[in-house]
């Protein structure tokens, strides 16, 4: 019987068609059911609620289940101004979420501090302490923009290879 060398095993695993297919299926399913965390920080949160409501209806895209517990959701929408006091809480919520988890920065506050950029107590964007996947600019962004952001995140989740080159954060 031939002994398989260690690097050969790697080759076998890498070329295992079934494994990659299961992964792709999981990714596809993940991308189609991104459950957001019920969590808002400032005025953008109001717009996030409007997105889930009657007129814009986020439920159409499978993101209708806003879970209140971080253990059960996949997507953290940072909707609003992150103050220095709130930053540890946001970080903790992120750490409580179960893998795989994604972060969407909504509004200029969550992207870079927004109108409060020169304030003494505002954190300059969510990406200073969290791996943000998608940025949705605006003050506040319209619900359509948020839905578009979530659809972009869906592309990113479903095709991890495609965005490999563009990646900046972990």
């Amino acid at each position, binding site marked *: 019987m031939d002994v398989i060398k260690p690097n050969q095993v790697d080759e076998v695993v890498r070329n295992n068609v079934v494994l990659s297919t299961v992964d792709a299926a999981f990714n596809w*399913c*993940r991308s*189609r059911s991104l459950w957001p965390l019920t969590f808002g920080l400032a005025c953008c949160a109001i717009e996030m609620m409007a997105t889930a409501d*009657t007129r814009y209806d986020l439920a*159409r*895209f499978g993101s209708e289940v806003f879970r209140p517990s971080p*253990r059960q959701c996949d997507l953290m929408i940072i909707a609003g101004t992150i103050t220095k006091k709130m930053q540890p809480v946001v970080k903790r919520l992120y750490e409580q979420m179960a893998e795989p988890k994604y972060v969407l920065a909504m509004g200029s506050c969550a992207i870079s501090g927004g109108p409060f950029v020169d304030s003494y107590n505002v954190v300059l964007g969510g990406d200073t302490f969290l791996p943000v996947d998608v940025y949705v600019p605006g003050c506040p962004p319209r619900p359509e923009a948020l839905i578009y952001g979530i659809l972009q995140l869906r592309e990113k989740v479903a095709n991890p290879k495609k965005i490999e080159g563009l990646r900046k954060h972990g």
Partner: protein
Amino acid sequence: MEKSFFNTIADALRNWLMNGLGFSDTAAQLTATAIWTLVVILFILMNLIVLVWLERKFSAFFQQRRGPNRLGPAGFLQFPVDIVKVLGKEDIIPANADKTVFKIASTCLFITTILAWAVIPLGDGVILADLNIGLFYFLAIGSTATVSLMMGGFSSNNKYSLIGGMRTVAQMISYEIPMIFSLLGVVMMVGSLRLSDVVAAQQNMWFIVPQAIAFLVYFVATVAETNRGPFDLAEGEQELVAGYFTEYSGIRYAIWMIAEYGNLVAVSTIASIMFLGGWNAPFGLTFIPGFVWLLLKIYFMIFLFMWVKWTYPRIRIDHLMHFGWKFLIPVSLANILVTGIGIYVYRLIIG
């Protein structure tokens, strides 16, 4: 008609096991029971897919939204996709949790649900065990669900879970009493706890007519029993995050949800059997098989549950307790009294 159909299948299976594979009598019986158990579990899971889809569509309908409509016909595939995603999530067990209890709590609730299904008939003779104390067994098993909810709340080592678990226990124990009392009226009229006897007694008139008050009490009490809105205080999101399953993620969370929906189907089935005539066809429409009638009635009950859930806001815990103890229990007791007097008078007149 469907009695012969299902029984023919069962007999054929038993024959095949005994003659074709040379099983002994007991072994064939055991195997047939195992297969039927599997069928029941599959029935619950199949129902789940339809139920979650209906729940989302109804909630969308009541809130003038569209609901999921991208995956599959009218968003029907949304739930299977959700389940696959939930299966692929990380399974978090909190560091300070009581790990063994935490792990088995959700499975315990699921086992309770399956056990309760043992005595629920899905048609004439289509039943796992037609016990002569079937209803009693169902209620007894149903009340042990409280233990698993408490296990989940207590073992998570989280204050919100604990409060959620405590609330569930208080709520379920209070509402079990009017629920049982409301079913007693029917039992008095039939004179049997066997569910097939109850259905047989409704050949001419469904018990919702003489026992209308009992039906209403049963309905309200089961809404509280299954922890659905407007009585879903155990998982009131504003105050308790997600109640007793706050700390659960991934597959364990999915099992909680499956068990809850299984309970919902179980209580709807009991309501259809006790009050809505089970598999008896109304208006002599017997060309439609009884199984289909039963399913229609079950889904009608489920529709009522969803309608109530998505229409009324959640009420406060003390109001809930007052309503249960000071209104539902007296009403259900009075119903028992009136039923008893009615039966006595009826016997006097008939002779």
